[in-house]
């Protein structure tokens, strides 16, 4: 079991996604929530940050937060899985601990 990291800030506004991906171990997971979901969009200045990390880290994004912000699933970087609050709970249960990048 490995850690699951949550990132709740826009990668255009804060450094938390950068820091998370610098320090997340291979085999760990990242869940993008709240304004963090902007990091899941393809074709942005920050997309490469996530794309490059996908070989060793599993990415999830919270669906309700995407919908609120008008981000349709076709805009996402391919390979990021959309999850709900129930899946959020499952992901926390399936990982050894949770680190919130605040």
């Amino acid at each position, binding site marked *: 079991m490995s850690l699951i990291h949550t990132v709740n800030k826009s990668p255009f506004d804060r450094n938390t996604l950068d820091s998370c991906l610098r320090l997340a171990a291979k085999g760990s997971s990242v869940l993008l929530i*709240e304004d963090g979901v902007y990091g899941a969009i393809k074709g942005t200045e920050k997309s490469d940050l996530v794309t490059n990390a996908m070989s060793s880290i599993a990415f999830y994004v919270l669906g309700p937060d995407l919908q609120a912000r008008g981000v349709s699933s076709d805009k996402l970087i391919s390979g990021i899985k959309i999850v709900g*609050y*129930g899946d959020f709970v499952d992901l926390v249960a399936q990982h050894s601990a949770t680190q*919130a990048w*605040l």
Partner: protein
Amino acid sequence: MKFGILVNEGPYTHQAADTAYQFALAVINKGHEITRVFFYHDGVNNGTRLTTPPQDDRNIVSRWSEFANTHNIDLVICVAAAQRRGICDSGESKRNGKDTDNIAPGFRISGLGQLIEASILSDRLVVFGD
């Protein structure tokens, strides 16, 4: 599984208070247990009964109170953080020479040890903040 939840931000200003609630609800719906929801930093402001949100908006405070009542959840406000920010129950109010209190139903005020204890007694601790 047992979950501890830490809420670091107040209602309405940051989504943390909403996400924490939706997560807590999902924990219960998944059949897990919540050891404690601990409110720290501006999170203590989730526990004031004096809020009056717009009628077409959710009521974050009463939502917590109902959640605590329905599922018998322990909602703990950090006393030190609460003193800095003006949240008190009747005991704290008297001790600090105040003329009134503002704590909402279902919340109680206690020390930071309750956060550490929750992290030890829970299988997972999840933090929501700014």
